């Protein structure tokens, strides 16, 4: 095989580091999806578009002259309310319904979000400059933008903060109780409606953080939301709901897969490879389960 990546071992190191740092970011988005999937039993196709919207908030700050890194604090606050409003408007009507209804409804939301972002921010590919410089490793043969290290660090920080919050706080316990058994939680005095709204808000806030980090590490475009949705969906079905270390590891695995696919297949097939991986994972799990005469639930 005469691929460049197999001839130059340093490229391998480069791709691995890029992949792992990127994967941590994916894991953060996937964590949000796992949270609301587990609690509300909803698959949110608009997840990726929430991420992009969060990114545009940071980008707007950058345009206004504020350093985009502050976006990781401002963007989740705004996105929390966006998520909360979205829940009150649409999601609360699909919580108890068939999952396909929630998929289609959030698909509609995704289309609206994409188009609105297209109107407001334009259809150009944009990036917010963090001006953090780059770190050179191994005799300058591996370049690592500091913004990527920063984004991975922030992701881990927020993930830990959220885990602690879910364990210790009253709302966190209410959310976990609702996830286990919504009816029992209701009987015991948990306002499940409020819990659902908060869960969706927290999910949107996580997307906001991820989006702000994407705005300084990768690029933003109104129509690139869906791949993020699919990535987080993939991570969740591989890792399972509520298994945080597995989410982190499969996130990094996905990041690695993507970077290597990028080098081996070429950049034009990168998104295609992600979607094909989704199909392969689902089919693989289906065959594995069908041996026991079971199916994915």
């Amino acid at each position: 095989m005469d691929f460049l990546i197999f001839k130059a071992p340093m490229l391998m190191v480069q791709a691995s580091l890029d992949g792992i740092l990127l994967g941590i970011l994916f894991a953060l988005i996937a964590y949000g999806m796992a949270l609301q999937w587990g609690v509300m039993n909803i698959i949110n196709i608009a997840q990726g578009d929430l991420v992009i919207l969060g990114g545009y908030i940071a980008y707007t700050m950058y345009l206004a002259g504020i350093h985009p890194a502050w976006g990781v604090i401002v963007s989740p606050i705004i996105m929390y309310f966006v998520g909360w409003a979205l829940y009150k408007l649409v999601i609360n009507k699909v919580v108890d319904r068939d999952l396909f209804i929630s998929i289609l409804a959030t698909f509609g939301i995704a289309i609206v979000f994409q188009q609105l972002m297209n109107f407001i921010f334009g259809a150009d590919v944009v990036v917010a400059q963090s001006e953090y410089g780059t770190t050179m490793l191994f005799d300058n043969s591996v370049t690592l933008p500091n913004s990527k290290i920063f984004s991975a660090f922030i992701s881990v920080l927020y993930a830990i903060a959220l885990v602690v919050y879910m364990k210790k706080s009253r709302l966190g316990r209410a959310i976990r109780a609702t996830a286990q058994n919504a009816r029992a939680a209701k009987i015991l005095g948990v306002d499940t409606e409020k819990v659902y709204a908060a869960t969706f808000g927290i999910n949107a806030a996580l997307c906001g953080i991820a989006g702000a980090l994407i705005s300084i590490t990768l690029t933003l475009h109104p129509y690139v939301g869906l791949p993020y949705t699919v990535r987080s969906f993939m991570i969740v079905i591989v890792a399972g709901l509520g298994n945080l270390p597995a989410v982190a590891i499969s996130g990094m695995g996905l990041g690695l897969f993507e970077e290597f696919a990028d080098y081996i297949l070429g950049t034009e097939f990168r998104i295609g490879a992600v979607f094909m991986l989704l199909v392969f994972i689902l089919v693989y799990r289906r065959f594995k389960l069908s041996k026991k005469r079971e199916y994915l639930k």
Partner: protein
Amino acid sequence: MTAIKQKDLILYSGLIILGLVAPFLFSAFKVQLTYLCVLIVLAMTWNLQGGEMGYNSFGNILFYGLGMYLTASVQVGMFFPLAEWTESGGEKTFVHTTAQYFQGIGVGLLVAAIVPTIVAGAIGYAILGLRGHYFAICTLGLGIAAGEIAGGIEIIGAGQGFTTPPFPAEIVDPEARGQFFYFLSFLVLVLAFVFVKYIYGSRFRLILNAIRDNEDKAEAMGIQTMKYKIVGWMCSAFFCGLAGGIMGGLIGYIDSTDVAFDGREMGVFMVLMAILGGKGTLWGPIIGATLFHFFKEGLWTFILGWQYVALGVLIVVIVVYFPEGLMGWLREKYPERFGEVIDEKDRKAQVELK
């Protein structure tokens, strides 16, 4: 098949006559009418496995796009080298004669119908083992992956797109092109209707319904569910491929993600139309598609730029407030017209209970 009732006979012959004279009556709207026929075919065949079988697919666009690329490729490849055609941007260097054009599109449509059916059969065993939302997401992934991959393949034009052969210049009548595509799509529509109507009267439909209502029980009753699921999907794929082939010729230009594997438009439209009219009914998707097309064409020009916002809002509203569709609503309102017998005493007793 049972004998067609006289009332139905009048209805069907009326519709066929309407379909045959429509391009002459509304000469300016021929392209719109062709679109309508294709949309109805897509909605009707989506309904076959989305509504009847309960397997909500976002990925039928895969077969549609496949059919589109196959028709155009066969039409060109039969007479000219395909690679040079796409490289030169199509029609500038090579010209199809009239006979070549029609032979090409005939064979192309045949291939476009058969290959997607085979593909559906081949991947069916793997994909249809998934259930519910996993199936929906998996097919969504398939459709988008197909678009992304087609956008990277050089021989079919990659990202620049692929010009389909233009209508032969020897036919000078300016109406001819529109009429040709209209009658082609109308023929496919009639074929699809007869086929779906036949299925609605057959045991096959009952099996599909059994799969939708409870697959495990259907299997326990001795139905080989996998076999019927694959056949159901293949039926959809057959007509999706044909519809795609016609649309490719009509539009005259194929782009990987915006025209062929257009999950954002066609892929959603077919689901939406079937739901709007009412899933799991014969006439629902037809009415849904017609309404949707009128709404779209009427409104699109007034809200230029905002059409996707309107589309998204429409999806949310239909899905959240109207999941049973028009036929479902009518059925609830006038159950006796759908052949449902209501026991008045029982109904009253239930009302009192509430």
